[in-house]
């Protein structure tokens, strides 16, 4: 089976190459006026987001990447809602980043991380739908020579109310495409939504059930070769030498190539041949200055930050240090959080066709424009001579916002011009060359007055800054503001939910050589554990119920409190739990949304059974409750896998874990019953792909404490001998 690249079908025939679009070529003559931009099948764009075929198929363009989180369906719902089209006839397609650049970024950002897909683009995609609807109605009205105000549209059918005449979108799309778009269109009140806001099924399910869905790993181009790669096992190391002669005669092997300064790849007829030959290739590495680093040395390095003088302040009010010095009672605890690997089910891969004047890549990417920049940089060709074709992602979780593997693939393909090359990482290469959840430690100190009122909190985070590695130019005088996710004094990205008279949250930056990256939930994961478990510690130190203790501090934070109250009520907080079952809860805010969880666990020996977790989220607007429900449950699986099992350790400068046998994750047997409460307040737009992950771990940890009286402050729990029951 040959995978035929869909580029030709997707490439716009007219205008795509002309910045700003609208440059008429002869091709549009059979179809209409000079300003119409067409899909390759000749169907007109009503605007950049909406193409309508004569058979009434509605093609909705999706700029963001689908990696399982449901963004593709959600964004299509928002466009379709305003377009008033027949949902049953909606299909989607991705514009390429090259097309986006050529058309002055008409589709806006293609960035798909930070739970931003819907919350950042909802307004302009809805306007695109509404604008297209207005143009379609106008086109019908013009044909009928009636005022557009007498016409309305529903399910892709336009009706002239006084006469009862009807036509369909497919019939008037051609004319609509030539109409000057209205400048300001009113958006529907979400109360009137019939497509958005509904628990519709995903648009992309069927091919995932039959093996027909083509992921990056499945791309096949005519004449394609396959590559397997080994990069320096120590980050920062270099390739010293390899002996290609030893594998030259192996079946299928075509090339052995150096890839940058630190990697070597074998290119063969099939990937299995390439990888088998690579395993047999003698390689020597110059491991460089990081070869002595270990988990223990990293932990010592981070520990030095817990009491360091220099630290960046993220949130401060009053004088926490003084209040702690004057406290009637002081509570102190040190927590730590390990490296995690994304472990997407689909290993990193990219297919590249390089020729002297063009370079195209087929990439499962979360950020198509960044992938394009990587292709351009690695190929040495200008952006205009490169493009990236996005494939469905077999998991992303933040890993596919980095494009190290794209750079590698282009570097290989450039050495074999004219031949398409598919680079696939083995799972072992993937596991040991990740971009890891950062490591941190935290020293938490709380102070009480003589009446057990919390007077001060000092949260000192020591550890790794993602921004220092990923985007150092965005540091603010050395400070990484991302470190304080969920701990900020305010703001949509993650506001602290408690009012404490004397508060200090600061960060001593300690950057080991292991590359950190965005990992579903990012810094919120450890921040929420540190804060919410310590709040539980403080409540117990004060002899108060953990819910009541929090409530007293949350009066100024009604949205944080509302989700907490919701989970408390549903779990039955304050009412007797079943025999042997104990409860814990947590709340946090991030990526624009307010979330809380309450867990019920029982503990037998070192075995923890999670019976139930209730998760509540207020994402402002719920575009597809059924998909949000799945994100809640899925985020809990991801977060609890990390809590119980997930850890990448470092020895001799390299990651020790190589595959799922030593980087284990939750299976169905460990899956708790998840109940989600989706409670959009309607006054903002928040994300849903990540936020609930923050609260799963602290809710379970607090429940384990309730069951055992033992605080667990280092992770994963397997290191404490604790496992899923």
């Amino acid at each position, binding site marked *: *089976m040959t*995978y035929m690249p869909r580029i030709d079908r997707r490439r716009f025939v007219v205008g795509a190459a002309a910045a700003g679009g609208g440059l008429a070529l002869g091709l549009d003559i059979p179809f209409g006026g000079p300003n119409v931009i067409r899909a390759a099948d000749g169907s007109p764009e009503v605007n950049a987001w909406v193409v309508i075929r004569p058979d009434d198929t509605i093609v909705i363009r999706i700029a963001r990447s689908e*990696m*399982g*989180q*449901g963004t593709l369906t959600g964004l299509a719902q928002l466009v379709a809602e305003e377009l008033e089209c027949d949902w049953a006839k909606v299909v989607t397609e991705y514009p390429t980043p090259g097309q986006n650049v050529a058309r002055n970024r008409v589709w806006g950002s293609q960035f798909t991380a930070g739970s931003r897909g819907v919350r950042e683009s909802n307004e302009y995609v809805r306007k695109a739908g509404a604008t297209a609807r207005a143009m379609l109605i106008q086109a019908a009205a013009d044909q009928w020579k009636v005022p557009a105000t007498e016409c309305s549209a529903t399910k892709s059918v336009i009706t002239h109310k006084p006469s009862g005449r009807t036509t369909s979108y497919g019939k008037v799309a051609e004319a609509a495409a030539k109409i000057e778009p209205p400048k300001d269109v009113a958006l529907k009140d979400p109360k009137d939504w019939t497509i958005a806001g509904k628990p519709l*099924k*995903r648009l*992309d*399910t*069927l*091919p*995932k*059930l*039959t*093996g*027909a*869905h*083509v*992921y990056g*790993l*499945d791309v*096949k181009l005519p004449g394609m070769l*396959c590559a397997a790669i080994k990069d320096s096992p120590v980050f920062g190391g270099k390739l010293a030498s390899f002996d290609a002669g030893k594998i030259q005669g192996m*079946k299928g092997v075509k090339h052995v190539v150096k890839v940058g300064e630190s990697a070597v790849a074998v290119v063969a007829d*099939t*990937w*299995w041949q390439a990888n088998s030959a690579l395993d047999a290739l003698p390689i020597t590495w110059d491991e460089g200055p990081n070869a002595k680093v270990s988990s223990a040395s990293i932990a010592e390095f981070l520990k030095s930050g817990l009491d360091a003088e220099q630290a960046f302040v993220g949130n401060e009010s009053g004088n926490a240090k003084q209040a702690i010095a004057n406290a009637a009672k002081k509570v102190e605890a040190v927590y730590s959080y390990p490296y995690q690997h994304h*472990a*997407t*089910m*689909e*290993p990193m891969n990219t297919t590249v066709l390089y020729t002297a004047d063009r370079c195209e890549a087929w990439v499962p990417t979360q950020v198509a424009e960044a992938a394009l920049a990587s292709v351009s940089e690695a190929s040495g060709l200008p952006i205009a001579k490169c493009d990236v074709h996005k494939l*469905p*992602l*077999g*998991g*992303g*979780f933040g890993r596919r916002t980095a494009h190290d593997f794209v750079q590698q693939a282009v570097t290989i393909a450039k050495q074999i011009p004219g031949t398409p090359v598919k680079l696939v990482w*083995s*799972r072992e290469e993937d596991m040991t060359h990740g971009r890891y959840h950062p490591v941190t430690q935290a020293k938490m100190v709380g102070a009480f007055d003589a009446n057990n009122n919390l007077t001060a909190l000092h949260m000192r985070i020591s550890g790794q800054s993602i921004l220092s590695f990923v985007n150092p130019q965005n540091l603010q005088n050395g400070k990484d503001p991302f470190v304080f996710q969920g701990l900020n004094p305010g703001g949509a990205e993650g506001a602290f939910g408690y009012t404490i008279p004397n508060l200090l949250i600061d960060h001593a930056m300690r950057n080991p050589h292991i590359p950190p990256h965005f990992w579903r939930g990012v810094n919120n994961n450890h921040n929420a554990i540190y804060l919410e478990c310590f709040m539980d510690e403080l409540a117990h130190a004060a002899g108060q119920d953990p819910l009541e203790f929090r409530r007293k501090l949350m009066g100024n934070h009604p949205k944080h409190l509302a989700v907490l109250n919701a989970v408390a009520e549903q779990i039955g907080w304050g009412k007797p739990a079943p025999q042997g079952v104990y409860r814990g809860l947590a709340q946090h805010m991030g990526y624009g949304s307010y979330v809380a969880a309450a867990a019920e666990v029982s503990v037998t020996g070192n075995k923890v059974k999670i019976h139930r977790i209730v998760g509540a989220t207020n994402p402002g607007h719920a575009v597809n409750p*059924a998909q949000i429900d*799945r994100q809640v*449950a*899925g*985020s*809990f*699986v*991801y977060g609890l896998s990390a809590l119980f099992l997930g850890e990448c350790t470092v020895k001799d400068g390299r990651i020790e874990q190589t*595959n*799922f*046998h030593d980087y284990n*994750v*939750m*299976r*169905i*047997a460990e*899956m708790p*019953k*998840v109940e989600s409460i989706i409670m959009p307040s309607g006054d903002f737009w928040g994300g849903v792909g990540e936020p609930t992950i923050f609260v799963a771990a602290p809710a379970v940890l607090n429940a384990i404490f309730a069951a055992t009286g033992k605080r667990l402050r280092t992770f994963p729990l397997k290191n404490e001998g604790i496992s899923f029951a």
Partner: protein
Amino acid sequence: MARLTVNGQSHNVDVDPNTPLLWVLREQIGLTGTKYGCGIAQCGACTVHMDGVAMRSCSVPVSAAEGKQITTIEGLAAGGTLHKVQKAWLEHDVPQCGYCQSGMIMAVAALLKEKPKPTDADIDANISNICRCGTYQQVRAAIHAAASA
């Protein structure tokens, strides 16, 4: 040269006899619905049926598959009609990214053949495929639905 029967069709493939069945399916026969996830029989993304039994094809040398009836995800729907597991998956909108679901569906289809009405404990004991998106709650519901279909 190995002779394989996949989804009812015969194929002669010229590969090293130790080549894993997974890669022969994907690279020689061109059936890419069966996925590579780990290569060491940990994740189950490569699950296929050999004589009706679920096998992790990344760890089956092609030589051991000769003479067996191999069914992949592409061959599960008989005569263009979705298998009851696929139907239940569609009804419950199970997949998120979908990458693991070929293997998950094949594992569940084999389980239902052996245990037509699996209990939750049967599911826990028999389905160990990894899904990083965390679709397990929908998977369980859809298994029960398929069992009563």
